[in-house]
């Protein structure tokens, strides 16, 4: 998804002209199209995530939209207070871009796995989470956030595969699930992030007849809207490449406890036992991932 992201960001800045891309000394063979087109709007902050995030807020405070590009935990946990105080509290248009969702970095290990990032980012009141399930959702989410700049977290899968894409912009709204597979009106699987293939497998076996929905944009401020979209369902299965604690399924569970309803929920997620074992993304997902 990285290359699609950079290509689309480069295209969007042709018109917007106020986008900055800030990296912390990574993104080799990915970020160059933006850098080469807009060298003055491209900054390498070096290996210093806290300064990078505070500085990105400062740039954003001067009528610019800053994209901060990094790997998994470096642009989130390493600079969590800068995100909390500088970006989210000031409601500034900084989009934090994190590559390598879930177990995406495979045998690079736990330091590079994004397994708790939803829990951190969804605790900020102004933050929107963008977790596209495919490249169409990615370009559509990106177009939305550039048109509506605000504190945001874009979570990208490391995989560059182009399957499931029709190269078109989707009608996309925060908190509103997009239908991926038509089926039951009452029983549904709701996925966020690039986990749609897991849902497709489940409807072939255990959850035959279920509809599949994807939720690419969500966060604390979209809870009510999301509830209004799902209140018609009876049984919901959630799928994510993240721990259960503080994750997407827990977010849906919190919503169901807040508003009156008769919906049953089951969540599928990555098991914390995964953290000490070495393996490729597919190996680890097969053993510890949602199924």
């Amino acid at each position, binding site marked *: 998804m990285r290359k699609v992201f950079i290509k689309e960001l480069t295209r969007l800045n042709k018109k917007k002209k106020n986008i*900055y891309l800030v990296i912390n000394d990574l993104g080799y063979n990915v970020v160059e199209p933006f850098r080469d087109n807009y060298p*003055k*709007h491209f*900054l390498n*902050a*070096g290996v*210093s995530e*806290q*300064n*990078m*995030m*505070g*500085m*990105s*807020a*400062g*740039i*954003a*405070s*001067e009528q*610019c939209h*800053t994209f901060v590009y990094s790997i998994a935990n470096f642009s989130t946990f390493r600079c969590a*207070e*800068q995100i909390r*105080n*500088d970006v989210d*509290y*000031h409601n500034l248009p900084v989009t934090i871009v994190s590559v390598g969702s879930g177990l995406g970095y495979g045998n690079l290990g736990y330091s590079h796995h994004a397994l708790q990032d939803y829990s951190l980012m969804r605790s900020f009141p102004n933050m929107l989470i963008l977790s596209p399930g495919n490249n169409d959702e990615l370009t559509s989410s990106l177009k939305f956030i550039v048109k509506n700049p605000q504190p945001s977290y874009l979570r990208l899968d490391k995989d560059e595969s182009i399957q499931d894409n029709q190269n078109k912009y989707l009608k996309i709204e925060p908190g509103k699930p997009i239908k991926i597979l038509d089926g039951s009106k009452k029983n549904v699987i709701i996925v966020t992030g690039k986990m749609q293939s897991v849902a497709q497998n489940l409807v072939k076996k255990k959850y035959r007849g279920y509809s599949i929905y994807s939720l690419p944009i969500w966060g604390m401020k979209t809870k009510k809207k999301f509830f209004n979209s799902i209140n018609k369902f009876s049984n919901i299965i959630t799928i994510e490449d993240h721990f259960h604690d503080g994750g997407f399924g827990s977010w849906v569970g919190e919503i169901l406890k807040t508003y009156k309803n008769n919906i049953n929920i089951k969540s599928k997620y990555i098991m914390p036992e995964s953290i000490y074992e070495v393996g490729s993304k597919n190996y680890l997902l097969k053993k510890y991932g949602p199924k």
Partner: protein
Amino acid sequence: MKKKFNNIIQNIRTNILNLTFKAKSSHIGSCLSIVEILVALYSGVLKKKDKFILSKGHAALALYSTLYEKKFISLKTLKSFGSNGTILMNHVSSKVNGVEFSTGSLGHGLPFGVGKAIKFKTNNQSNKVFVLMSDGEINEGTTWESLLFASHHKLNNLNIIIDYNKIQSMDFVKKVINVEPLISKFQSFGCNVFNVNGHSVNEIISFLKKKSPNKPKVLIANTIKGKGVSFMENNNLWHYKNPNQFELSRALKEIKKKYA
């Protein structure tokens, strides 16, 4: 002869004392140590297009009192400091007119200021950025991360003022984490460094107006924590304590006599 800035300095110190007493808040020593720095900035340095960031956000009341003197906020607003249902929290808030950035956790102001400075520089804008930091903030890693970036990018529109009162939260700086030799530390990070009297408005103005070709500027403003009130000076008790009625009266008398 009465000095040029005595009135405004007296007013700010008087409001700091009265409102700290009223709100039962803390950080009176930190507020009193930066009064002349704020007067210099707001009376002789800052232009409308420039940006000022108070990184030592716990000295909010000193800034609010200066903003009142410069007509950014009303007396009614200033007097609401620390009261229920108002916007003047004890750590500086950008919800207050004239405040650029909310702080309170140390080490956040400089990276934010660096962001503004690099944006102005890459867009060929002549706006300047001023960041006022405490000496305790020198402990923060972000200070040095930001300086590396600022000097690499030759951010000569960035002006850093260190309120060097030599007392941090728990004790004297030299006893907590010794930061000396401070001048050569900043120089080695690629900054133009000036060692100034932090209680001389004219000296601060003249050094802040000096050009700093190709380098960020650092003013080490030598100050006294609790400046202006004899029993508060150089005593870290006044990082925390708010004055009782007797102490307030005594402090106000001293301020009146000193700046009359």
